[in-house]
Structure formats: structure tokens, C-alpha cells
């Protein structure tokens, strides 16, 4: 016979674990609920399409939406091809035991674990003060400061570095899901390795590459630290028109409104609504990535 104490203990374990699990759900609901309730009233077409007015206590966030969009597009143009090529190298060319492959893999994993603010500082030190300043010296003799200051190009490159591991891991997974039989079919027809990759492996991993790109964009859109010193601006009267312009960004906009505004209370509604826009954006992207990844898994099982 079990004692009462043993019985109570037996019941308390599942109850406790269920409670812990529920706390997570509760947190998500609280955060989303608070943001939706706080931001819903401010959200309007004018808010999405207008520019900030009256010291950011009124008006819209269109420049920040546009800046975020431009940031992730430039980031993807740079990061997705580099990530894809790296994934091709790791899964197709490198022998799994080669030292180089291990070093690359180690670097990818380390890169994934570096805090975002370190990327921001690296971007400032490398892209702006090292590359940018030298570009100015070569291009204008150092008379004009054009590339040696924060801009959207350096911010996008910094962000591309940050999201590179995400792309590499996704693409590699998709490439490995391409059945060996298809590669063998191609090679047995006299195709070279590269022809096989180009005509069989890559077309069959296109969803994986897309997933990687979406996850990278979703991650990039949500990070503020990497662009803090490399290109994001407090307020700009006009949209960025060239790669050497600074830009506004959603996450950064929330940060400055809640910490740098002369009248934080007056910006509360805008803060909430901006956060809501950012959340919807990243959630949508994440769901799209999850859906695509699910389809890849199904395909590799079949």
C-alpha cells in the first residue's frame, strides 16, 4: 500500500509540470494581449503610411517600416547567396571529417552564439571605421565623409553576418533532404558534380533556401543592437535614397520612443502600435518558415 504522502507526491508532479507549462502560455498571451489592446486604437492606415510628427508624439511610422524593409532586403541579397554557397560547400564538397569543414562548422555555431550587440560593435569597428574610412580616403582623398559613417549598407552587412548561421543551417538541412538516388541518377548520366548541384540538388532545395531567407529576415527585422551604431537614425525627414544614407527602423523606433523621447507618455500609443506591427511582421514570417520547413520534412520522409 502506498502512503498518503506518496500518493500526494505522485499527483503533485504532473500538476507542477502542467503549471510550469501553463506559465509559458500565460506569458505569451499576456504579452500579445497587452500589445494588441494597447496598440489597436492607434493602428490606422494613416499610422502605417504617415511620417512621425510633433516630436514623434503624433503621425505614423512609414519611414521605419520602409527602412526595416530595405534593411532586410539588402541583408538578404548579401546573406542568402553567401549562406547558400557555404551550405553547398559543407554538405556537398567538404568531407565530413576534413579539418576545414570542422573549422567552418565551428565558426558557424560560434557566430550563432555571439550576442547581437557584439555584431553592432564589430560593424562599427570593421565596416565603418576600417572599410568605410579607407573607401573615403581612396574615393575623395578623405575630404568628404561619405562611407566612413553609419548608413544602411553597413547596417545591412552587419545584419547579414548576424543572420548567416540561420541561412546556412536551413539550406544545409534542405540539401541533405534531397534523395541520394536523384544525385546518383544525375551523376550516372555523365553529369559533373557541379551540374548535379545546379540542376538537381538546388532546384530540389529551393523551399529550404526560401525558409532560410525568411527566418533570417524575421530574425533581422527583430534585432536592434546590430544597427544601433551602424546605420539606424533617430528621425529622418526623408526616406533613404542611397546606400550611404541612414534609415529609420521599427525596433530602433520603439527603443528611442521609450527612452529618448522628451514626452514618453505621449508616445505610448504609438509605441504599442509600432510593437504590434513589428510582432505581426515577425510572426507572419516565422509561420511562413515553419510551414515551408514542414513541407520539406514531409518531402524527405516520402
Amino acid at each position, binding site marked *: 500500500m502506498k502512503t498518503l504522502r506518496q500518493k500526494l507526491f505522485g499527483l503533485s508532479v504532473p500538476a507542477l509540470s502542467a503549471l510550469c507549462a501553463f506559465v509559458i502560455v500565460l506569458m505569451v498571451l499576456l504579452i500579445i494581449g497587452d500589445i494588441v489592446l494597447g496598440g489597436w486604437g492607434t493602428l490606422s492606415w494613416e499610422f502605417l503610411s504617415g511620417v512621425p510628427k510633433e516630436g514623434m508624439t503624433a503621425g505614423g511610422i512609414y519611414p521605419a517600416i520602409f527602412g526595416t524593409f530595405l534593411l532586410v532586403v539588402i541583408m538578404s541579397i548579401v546573406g542568402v547567396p553567401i549562406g547558400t554557397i557555404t551550405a553547398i560547400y559543407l554538405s556537398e564538397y567538404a568531407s565530413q571529417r576534413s579539418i576545414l569543414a570542422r573549422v567552418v562548422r565551428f565558426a558557424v555555431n560560434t557566430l550563432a552564439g555571439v550576442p547581437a550587440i557584439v555584431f553592432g560593435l564589430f560593424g562599427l569597428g570593421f565596416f565603418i571605421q576600417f572599410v568605410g574610412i579607407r573607401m573615403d580616403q581612396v574615393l575623395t582623398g578623405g575630404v568628404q565623409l561619405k562611407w566612413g559613417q553609419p548608413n544602411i549598407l553597413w547596417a545591412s552587412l552587419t545584419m547579414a553576418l548576424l543572420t548567416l548561421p540561420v541561412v546556412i543551417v536551413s539550406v544545409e538541412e534542405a540539401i541533405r533532404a534531397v534523395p541520394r538516388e536523384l544525385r546518383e541518377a544525375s551523376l550516372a548520366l*555523365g553529369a559533373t558534380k557541379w551540374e548535379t548541384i545546379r540542376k538537381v540538388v538546388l532546384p530540389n532545395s529551393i523551399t529550404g533556401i526560401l525558409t532560410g531567407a525568411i527566418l533570417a529576415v524575421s530574425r533581422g527585422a527583430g534585432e536592434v543592437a546590430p544597427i544601433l551604431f551602424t546605420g539606424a537614425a533617430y528621425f529622418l525627414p526623408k526616406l533613404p535614397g542611397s546606400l550611404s544614407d541612414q534609415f529609420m527602423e521599427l525596433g530602433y523606433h520603439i527603443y528611442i520612443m521609450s527612452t529618448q523621447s522628451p514626452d514618453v507618455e505621449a508616445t505610448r500609443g504609438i509605441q504599442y502600435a509600432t510593437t504590434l506591427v513589428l510582432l505581426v511582421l515577425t510572426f507572419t514570417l516565422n509561420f511562413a518558415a515553419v510551414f515551408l520547413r514542414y513541407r520539406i520534412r514531409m518531402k524527405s520522409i516520402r
Partner: protein
Amino acid sequence: MNTNGYKIRTINLSLSYGSKLALNEVSLDIKPNHVTALIGPSGCGKSTFLRALNRMNDLIDDARTSGEVLVDNINVYRDDVDVVELRKKVGMIFQKSNPFPKSLYDNVAYGPRINGIHDTKTLAEIVESSLERAALWDEVKDDLKKSGLALSGGQQQRLCIARALAVNPEVLLMDEPASALDPIATAKIEELIYELKSNYTIVIVTHNMQQAARVSDFTAFFYLGKIIEFNDTKTIFTSPKEKQTEDYVTGRFG
């Protein structure tokens, strides 16, 4: 080319995966325009031997080969042999039919296209003649845009044969091409093999004794990485010299 009358000769061909010896000094002569069957129990090395002939084992990281494989008297493991050219000459059909997830047309045109043929008219001719030679043309000619994966298992395998024929190989290696097919589809593949041998040298691995007896002219019995007996098919199946061969072909083991 075939001064000695053989299309393929292997001389003391050995192959190991890591420390495991899969082929042990195998020497076999394969005649042009005949069907040579490789039989034996699972793991006896017959598939490994087949894949050694067009160097598909190169794809396996720890596979090591020694000895010679002469195709038209040239050792294909020599350093200056272009493996891509070898595989165009020595085509392969796999156990599991593996059409690309593309249209029928693009499947068959894949080989010619990587060989630099892009002229639409030439490609269409190659596709038609290849499908005809693979006895699939009449069944699919109305819908060449259909995905290769939409075909039945037997049709998929004939599509793979058509795809292999499209690059004009001289040798066809078949790795249990009908093992996943129903009897009717199998009969069609066997009939096709019989028709193809007038133009191609065919080497076929099979688990099916009756199939080896029906389609092949010569049969090699593999056991534990060695050839136990090699002779014309009739002799192997009616009066084998070795006791092991007799036991295997009469179904006493394997």
C-alpha cells in the same frame, strides 16, 4: 576497339569499405551485345561490383579500389580517365526507379542537355527515339509534360532506361531493375532487356533466379566478395561445377 572480344574485363578487382572487404580479387570478362547476370545472396558484392564498373563507388567516402577495370581495353581507374565520359559510355539503371521531379520530356532530355544539346528539334528527336527504345513512347507520347513521378512503377523504370539511353551509352548496368515491380511490369522490363542487347552490352544484378535464367546469356555467381563460378547461363542453371552454385540456384540457400 575490342581486340580481345570483350567489352569489359576486370582483373583482380578488389574493393573495401573501410576495413571491410567487399570484393576480393574479382576477374570477369564481359562480352559485347550479350546480357551478363550477376547473382548471389545479399551482401555478396554483386552490386558493389556493378557500381565499380562505372566508378559510382567513388561517391562513397571510404571506398578503396585496387585492380583493374578495362572498358574497351582502357583501365577506367587510371588517373587520366575522365569519369564523366566513362559514365556517359557506361550507363546505369538503379534498383529504385529514380526519375527527376521534372516532366517526362525534361527527364529524358537531361543527359543530352548537359552534353550541350539545346536545339529543340534535335532534343525532341532524341526524346522520342529514347522513349521508343525503352518501349514507353506509345504510352506517354500524348503527355510529355506530365511529371515523371506521375507514372506507375514499371513506367518509371522504363523512363529511367529511356533517360539512360538518351546519352547513347554502349553499356547498361542494371542493379535489380525489376525487384520493386509487379510481374507484368517485370515481364515488360525483361522483354526490353532482350531487345536492347542487340545494341548494348548489358550487365544485370538480380535476386531473381528465374529472371537471370530468362534474360541472360552468361551468369556469374558471387559469394562473399568472390566469383565462385562463371559460365554461360544454361550451364550455371543445369550443370554447375561448384556445389555452392548448385545449392544457390536450386534454392537450397541464399
